[in-house]
């Protein structure tokens, strides 16, 4: 083994959307480089793979190809040899068959890369691709140059009319547009030309500079800016403190979503009249960039103030009727119709006057200028306006938070009124969409019904709302919700899937109750008696199934029990049953688990299939009693135990 060859691949493109870059990097990390490990870097304009220790050529290989049976005769063998491109003399007889041992010489890795790289590059998966030139290649954005080096040689290939070479480009404005490189000089040449290749280094440069300028941390924005720049540098700008009269939510939205600025706080939760912008250039010595950004910010804030003032000319309550002009969904009519349904639903769910008022007003911010401009602020703007227009705090807060939770990480609405309105709004969307067949399939979920469903589950569980799951959903929607429910408890709350199944099979009514049972079950599960008992319960269920036992066919008769293990189990069962009442789920589960020794002994010593028909039927009835009585908290037979074949999957 020699030290091997260095490899460099740079795909030079026009600016790739920042949010797609990490996924492309992950895909390139799997690039097959003949045993070498790819090190992948990326900026908006280049995807770069580097590796060391590639072999000059691949190893020779021996391949044994089985031919026809010897009984087929020489003619068949000759035909086979011809097809393989060899003489019959090259064939050997091994056992009952002809065989050909082929020596496949290794090939130059450079040649193999020439063949494989175009497909590897064009095979990258992107959320949306484009055409731009006549060969019909598709990529995320046009490819404009490529560097491909193995050792000191160019790996020659062509994609979309662009030939690979050894010449790269620097920063669009600050760098040279034609820079010859080698593996060794590549990164330093880029740096000299104002490209910081490493995303980690760009991220840390931004982090350091914005912190020094007092920016409020924002991890998502930091990530965006890391992949929107090749040479990031932060500057601080100012705005007129008079704009601080506008709600912080509006100012922050303008800064964050529209301008990609970090905000600055003078105290926790209190905005200061500054912003921090990250440029894609080395500096702003004349202050022109700062001035330009301040000018845009002022115009944006002015717009926001204009919208605020215009919107106050008509109260939210007077805008409800305007919702007849706002489409909810073509087949489902307007937001006015939706509003009316949500109000009714809030009533049905027992919402008080404030919750009903909030339901009536919650969509009325949709026709406002502010929401038309800042759509992400829907609900929030409604809440702010409601407060400003003198609605009770309970109403405005409920409106403000009724889109929550926006994700699994987001919190649920903080007030009971908000929770009920948020629930009703999402419930209505789910029910109505399912009613007309708008059901999410695969990656298609245009109405974000999965998110709505997830929000419903999160609210029901975390707010401990008293509605029975089955009273809220039926049919196809029930199955969909059940799936989301399992997803929530498994993926978000990290309960084991069999525990979730066991509790859901037990007849828990509300989701808060499901959660309580899961907490108890997962706590009792590791105790010594639990899993063996669960295994026995599964056995009981199988026995009953095999015997086709019908509970109505035989009334359990205590007198038919035999002394010994069967009687002892009965005693243990009665004691545990007595212990259940008034106990917490956890204590009850512990009580149930305590009968394990008697269950084990029973199965050890007692033959269920007794010869006497009445004894046999009585035993089945006895076991059935135990199973039904003790499956009310969780169906133990759903628990996957050690040695269970299902455990392996």
């Amino acid at each position, binding site marked *: 083994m020699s030290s091997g060859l260095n490899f460099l691949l740079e795909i030079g493109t026009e600016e790739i959307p920042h949010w797609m870059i990490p996924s492309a990097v992950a895909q390139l990390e799997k690039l097959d480089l003949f045993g070498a490990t790819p090190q992948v870097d990326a900026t908006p304009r280049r995807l770069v793979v580097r590796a060391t220790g590639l072999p000059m050529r691949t190893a020779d290989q021996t391949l044994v190809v089985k031919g026809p049976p010897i009984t087929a005769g020489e003619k068949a063998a000759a035909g086979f040899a011809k097809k393989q491109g060899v003489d019959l003399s090259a064939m050997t007889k091994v056992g009952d068959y002809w065989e050909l041992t082929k020596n496949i010489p290794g090939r130059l890795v450079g040649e193999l890369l020439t063949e494989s790289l175009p497909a590897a590059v064009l095979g990258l998966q992107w959320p949306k691709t484009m055409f731009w030139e006549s060969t019909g290649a598709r990529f995320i954005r046009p490819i404009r140059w490529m560097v491909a080096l193995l050792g000191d040689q160019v790996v020659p290939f062509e994609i979309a009319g662009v030939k690979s070479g050894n010449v790269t480009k620097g920063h669009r404005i600050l760098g040279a547009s034609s820079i010859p490189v080698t593996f060794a000089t590549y990164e330093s040449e880029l740096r000299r030309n104002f490209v910081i290749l490493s995303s980690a280094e760009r991220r840390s440069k931004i982090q350091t500079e914005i912190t020094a300028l007092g920016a409020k941390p924002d991890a998502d924005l930091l990530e965006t800016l890391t992949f929107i720049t090749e040479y990031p540098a932060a500057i601080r700008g100012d705005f007129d403190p008079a704009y601080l009269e506008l709600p912080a939510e509006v100012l922050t939205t303008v800064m964050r979503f529209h301008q990609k600025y970090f905000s600055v706080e003078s105290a926790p939760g209190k905005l200061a009249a500054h912003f921090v912008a990250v440029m*894609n250039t080395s500096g702003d010595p004349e202050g022109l960039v700062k001035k330009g950004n301040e*000018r845009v910010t002022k115009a944006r804030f002015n717009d926001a103030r204009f919208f605020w003032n215009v919107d106050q000319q008509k109260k939210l309550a007077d805008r409800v009727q305007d919702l*007849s002009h706002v489409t909810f969904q073509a087949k489902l009519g307007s937001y006015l119709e939706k509003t009316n349904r949500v109000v009714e639903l809030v009533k049905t769910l027992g919402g008080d006057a404030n919750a009903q008022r909030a339901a009536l007003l919650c969509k009325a911010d949709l026709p406002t200028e502010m929401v038309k401009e800042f759509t992400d602020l829907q609900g929030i703007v409604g809440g702010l306006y409601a407060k400003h227009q003198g609605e009770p705090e309970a109403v405005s807060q409920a409106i403000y938070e009724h889109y929550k939770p926006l994700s699994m990480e987001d919190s649920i609405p903080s007030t009971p009124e908000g929770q009920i309105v948020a629930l009703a709004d999402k419930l209505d969307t789910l029910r109505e969409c399912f009613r007309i067949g708008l059901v999410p399939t695969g990656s298609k979920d245009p109405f974000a019904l999965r998110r709505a469903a997830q929000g419903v589950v999160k609210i029901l569980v975390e707010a401990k709302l008293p509605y029975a799951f089955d009273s809220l959903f039926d049919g196809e929607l029930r199955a969909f919700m059940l799936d989301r429910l399992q997803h929530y408890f498994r993926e978000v709350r990290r309960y084991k899937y069999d525990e979730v199944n066991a509790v859901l099979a037990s007849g828990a009514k509300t989701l808060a109750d499901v959660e309580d049972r899961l907490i108890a079950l997962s706590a009792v599960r590791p105790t010594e008696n639990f899993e063996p008992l669960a295994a026995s319960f599964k056995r009981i269920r199988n026995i009953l199934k095999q015997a086709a036992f019908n509970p109505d066919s035989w009334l359990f008769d205590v007198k038919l029990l035999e002394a010994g293990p069967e009687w002892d189990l009965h005693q243990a069962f009665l004691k545990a049953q007595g212990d259940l009442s008034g106990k917490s789920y956890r204590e009850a589960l512990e009580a149930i688990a305590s009968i394990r020794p008697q269950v084990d002994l029973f199965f050890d010593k007692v033959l269920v299939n007794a010869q006497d028909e009445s004894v046999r039927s009585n035993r089945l009835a006895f076991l059935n009693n135990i199973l039904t009585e003790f499956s009310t908290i969780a169906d133990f037979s759903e628990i996957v135990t050690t040695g269970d074949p299902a455990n392996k999957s």
Partner: protein
Amino acid sequence: MDTFQQTLFKLKRYWDERGAIIQEPHDVEVGAGTMAPETFLRVLGKKPYKVAYVQPSRRAADGRYGENPNRLYKHQQLQVILKPSPDDILEQYLGSLEAIGIDLSKHDIKFEEDNWEAPTLGAWGVGWQVMLDGMEITQFTYFQQCGGIDLVLVPAEITYGLERLVAFLQGVESVYDIVWTKGVTYRDVRFQDELQYSVYNFEMANVDRLWRLFAEHEAECKELLAKYETRETLGNETLQPRRYPLLAAYDQVLKCSNLFNLLDARGAISVTERVGVIKRVRDLAVGTAKLWVDQQNPAPENSKEAA
């Protein structure tokens, strides 16, 4: 400091030097430069084309009675179409900014993803909004489809928002303060339009009549499209392919599109109607585009007939 029109001259000259036809605006109301036939129809088919023109673009709902410093009922776009897009298109574009006096080494330029889609035109593309010191100054799009047709020569579309760009260059905070030419401001030239059209669009446009006009223009367009399909059986000299007035049919599409915008600004399009009306305009646009491609690339027997 350059005036509004001087900046415009410089941009036109810049693209003139790069071989573009300098066109005048299309004379039917449009909502964007993309809708002018110089873009919508010319991007179809296999014939290379380079054109630049200023297109006044009307968006009834954006009117603000001349009171908002940044929003206009009618703004002016400089639209550049380069078909097929040259390999150094972004460098050429950045050169145009230098040409109007922006020293890029002193500013911050970013290309931020912004894909474009026009449902009423059956058109979409991918590209960026170009940000200069945090301000969007240009929409850059590689067209992929137009009139529901995949484009064989992918054009680059550069759309400069002129008011915004010049306000930046002149350092003014309201578009109305832009110096149009010496001693004349943007307000002097355009304020009346903004005020009067806002009043008309929001308050006075006769909704019933607009609907009737929409139906009339739609009918005219449909009739023209239908006759193109059946022209050979009609045996009429006027209806020979190359003489066939598809350009006139397209004007009817634009009329419908503009009336849709007006009706929308009047709040006259109800929920149930909205999707349907968009589809009506789209059907006309897609229908025209399809026939236009056919007309530009006649099948062999057709070309004989036309010759």
